[in-house]
């Protein structure tokens, strides 16, 4: 048993729903109680889908338990087939139905439904949403795809985009255009937008583009084995990764790595002098492994940030992220515990968080700007406009998105100069954010939670910079001086000062300590 407050991932059947809802002509019969229908709103509200997810829930009740829940499943299955006439059915159980062991797969198979019925075994008490997407897509591919003659022209499949994905809709367009520039045809994009019939033709392609390893790695491996299709390992997020992706695809396809860079503005935007202020901005990365990996490279190499923390919530990729963190001189945070992430961010005191919607909330509470780089995301992360993350345009979009929450170059200086000015004062936050100005940086020592903080936690918080048992105190003058430092660097100043003091064996921080530390860390 584990106490959970907020989760990064839903149960595995929600992953299956993301695959089913992304596809067309597929229907999912889910043995589940009525409350589980909440999952529909993820798609209809957060993603603003204009159709109900293609899911029939059996909604059995307590009084059915001793009686005939299997019968309810069979009726639901038949009704769903009759009403929706899908090209294929997937069937499975949610956490509750897993316990009553009706075996939806076996029941459906015995029913002579005249289309393929694919049974899903998604262990709800062990695995999560990410496993659900990957496993479901794999089962569908395994059931439907067969080796077949290749298309005469060079073609590939784009595998991995699903419903409720972070910018999947637009990433597909961007990657299509990268491929088009090299003269490579796209055979099938799946799951998003594909029908079961199209899945049967996956084998025609010469290779696969694995767009999101989280959702398509198992399927890609299967196709490599069964249909002899190699697949790409580079995810084209960021300028450098997109160049690498083009090179990888060109090698796989045996074509020229042709690219049209006329739309790529990111490198100049990053080089232009206004961007100098981005240098060394301390950022904390958290999200799914693929996006975090990409963000780390972009942050360091393409923005000139300093990465001060990184981690992911999907344990399936823990090893990759641990190795990557090591390269950056960091220890990776692998957890799906929101409070742990919050604590790590508080301790690292970054100037910006690149995270998920959960980190956006952490940022709001701590007064740290946040840009979203990964699912889980909320309704505002499904913009009406074209807003990819991948490819050349994706690189441009990422540049804009990441600098948006920051205080801009000139404004930074104005804040220093006119600290007490009514418009530039500290608490106003970046001036271009209007009413949504972030709260002033919450001092790590101050109680930030709306609920009473437990005593033990508060103690931990009191001196995040202290290394040993000795308690570090800020003298009143120094504390006052610290408050004069603008909010977006105050966290860093506090942290550096405390670190410096600890190294010097100083336990009382005075104004002098503050400025000695400043000189020490000057760059």
């Amino acid at each position, binding site marked *: 048993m584990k106490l959970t407050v907020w989760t990064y991932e839903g149960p595995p059947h929600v992953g299956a729903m993301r695959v089913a809802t992304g596809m067309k002509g597929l229907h999912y019969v889910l043995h589940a109680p009525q409350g589980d229908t909440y999952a529909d709103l993820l798609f209809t509200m957060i993603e603003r889908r204009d159709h109900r997810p293609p899911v029939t829930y059996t909604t059995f009740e307590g009084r059915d338990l001793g009686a005939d829940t299997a019968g309810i499943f069979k009726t639901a299955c038949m009704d769903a087939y009759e009403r929706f006439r899908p090209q294929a059915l997937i069937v499975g159980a949610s956490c509750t139905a897993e316990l009553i062991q009706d075996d939806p797969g076996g029941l459906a198979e015995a029913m002579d439904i005249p289309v393929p019925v694919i049974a899903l075994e998604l262990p709800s*008490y062990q695995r999560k949403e990410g496993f659900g997407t990957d496993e479901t897509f794999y089962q569908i591919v395994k059931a439907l795809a067969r080796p077949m003659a290749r298309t005469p022209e060079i073609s590939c499949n784009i595998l991995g985009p699903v419903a409720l994905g972070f910018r999947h809709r637009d990433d597909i367009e961007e990657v299509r255009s990268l491929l088009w520039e090299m003269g490579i045809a796209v055979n099938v994009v799946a799951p998003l937008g594909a029908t079961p019939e199209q899945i049967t033709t996956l084998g025609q392609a010469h290779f696969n583009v694995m767009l999101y390893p989280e959702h398509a790695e198992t399927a890609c491996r299967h196709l490599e084995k069964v249909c002899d299709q190699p697949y790409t390992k580079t995810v084209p997020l960021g300028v450098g990764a997109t160049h690498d992706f083009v090179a990888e695809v060109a090698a796989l396809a045996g074509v020229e790595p042709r690219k049209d860079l006329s739309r790529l503005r990111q490198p100049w935007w990053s080089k232009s002098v206004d961007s100098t202020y981005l240098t060394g901005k301390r950022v904390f990365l958290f999200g799914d492994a693929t996006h975090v990996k990409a963000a780390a490279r972009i942050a360091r190499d393409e923005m000139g940030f300093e990465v001060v923390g990184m981690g992911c919530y999907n344990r399936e990729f823990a090893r990759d992220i641990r190795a990557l963190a090591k390269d950056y001189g960091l220890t990776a945070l692998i957890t799906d515990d929101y409070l742990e992430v919050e604590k790590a961010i508080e301790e690292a005191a970054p100037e910006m968080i690149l995270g998920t919607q959960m980190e956006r909330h952490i940022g709001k509470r701590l007064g740290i700007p946040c840009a979203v780089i990964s699912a889980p995301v909320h309704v505002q992360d499904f913009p009406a406009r074209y807003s990819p993350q991948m490819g050349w345009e994706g690189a441009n979009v990422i540049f804009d998105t990441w600098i948006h929450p920051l205080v801009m170059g000139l404004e930074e200086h104005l804040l220093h100069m006119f600290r007490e000015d009514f418009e530039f004062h500290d608490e106003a936050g970046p001036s271009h954010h209007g009413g949504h100005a972030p709260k002033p940086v919450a001092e790590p020592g101050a109680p930030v939670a709306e609920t009473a903080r437990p005593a033990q936690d508060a103690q931990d918080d009191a001196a995040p910079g202290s290394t040993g048992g000795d308690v570090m105190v800020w003298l009143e003058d120094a504390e006052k001086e610290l408050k004069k430092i603008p909010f977006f660097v105050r966290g860093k100043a506090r942290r550096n000062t405390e670190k410096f003091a600890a190294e010097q064996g100083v336990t009382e921080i005075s104004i002098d300590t503050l400025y000695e530390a400043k000189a020490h860390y000057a760059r």
Partner: protein
Amino acid sequence: MNRPATIPAQTCRDAPILKQRGQREVFCGLTGIIWLHRKMQDAFFLVVGSRTCAHLLQSAAGVMIFAEPRFGTAILEEGDLAGMADAHDELDREVARLLARRPDIRQLFLVGSCPSEVIKLDLARAAERLTVEHAPHVRVLNYSGSGIETTFTQGEDACLASMVPVLPATQARELLLVGALPDVVEDQAVKLLSEMGIGPIRVLPAPRSAEMPGIGENVVYALLQPFLGDTAAALDRRGARMISAPFPFGEEGTTAWLRAIADEFGVDDETFDRVTAAPRARARKAVAAAAETLAGKSIFFFPDSQLEIPFARFLIRECGMEAIEIGAPYIHKGLVGPDMDLIPAGPTISEGQDVDLQLDRCRAARPDLTVCGLGLANPLEAEGLTTKWAIELVFTPVHFYEQAGDLAALFARPLRRRALLKLEAAE
């Protein structure tokens, strides 16, 4: 003059009820935690369930992520399912850890879910054991919010019902208001009743465990919500008596509700009119503004919060709407009977649902406004229907006179918006 003048000869109470058995598209009772935990400030709601339960709470909470909310899910894992003995041990351990970390918690609710019920994890036993262990600082209670036993607002009912047996006994003559309402609304009710000389007035749930009301034979109670059937039964068992009335939505509903209580306490007409005249006039005026949009329009209710019948009564009688179908997850005539009495026969009254068949009926009827859950709203909008998502009606203050206009406006807004948008070429 204060009682509703015309009681239609043929009312909804006697109309046949359409019952279909198929997929239901309603939240489970866990959802109530989202508002209950805000109301009871020293309570923690610990769901014993699965990742699905945690995800439901998170998705329903949507716009309000708190750092450390006063609810959480103890997620059952493979190991807990294998042997029952250690599931209790694990629960004890998680509870001890939680209470050590959160000294502000004085009441802990163990909330049962489908998984905990299917594996027959006895939370009543656990609650007894934990109450002894953590007495006197924390009282531990349990109730079911599972989707196999409860729908949406029934979770609040189950929660309040679980509190009734442990309320202190009293011989005092008191009025008890039952239901978790936003403070601003609750205060309005108390003020109106106090001005009539009615009191003492207590509320269930109280904001803090120390302020919980007493209960006994001289207590009369009035429900604030139409979904509190089990709570009412539990109160009856403790000797309290219900004051039955239409629910306090709209000018008419609020007046009827207040009148029933006033009668119980022997308030004369003159006093009643003096206290209610001004807010009644305000309510009528505010409703009239929204009614301009609503009058003559048809409405279709999918089952959701149990508020459907009282809302339909309000919209038909005070806003001039015409109901095509009024669906509710279940219909408890002992509670909503007085509201049904005020609705002329005509609309289809349905209980439970087969969502696909109900969607067919809705599409065929093409109502001007459809009230439905979040899973159906956008798909129906895309088909050209105008919708109001029901959950907003549960989260917004809509009771009593001062909110009557807001309630009407919530229904009017989607219609006004549809009329407002011009998304085609000008020609």
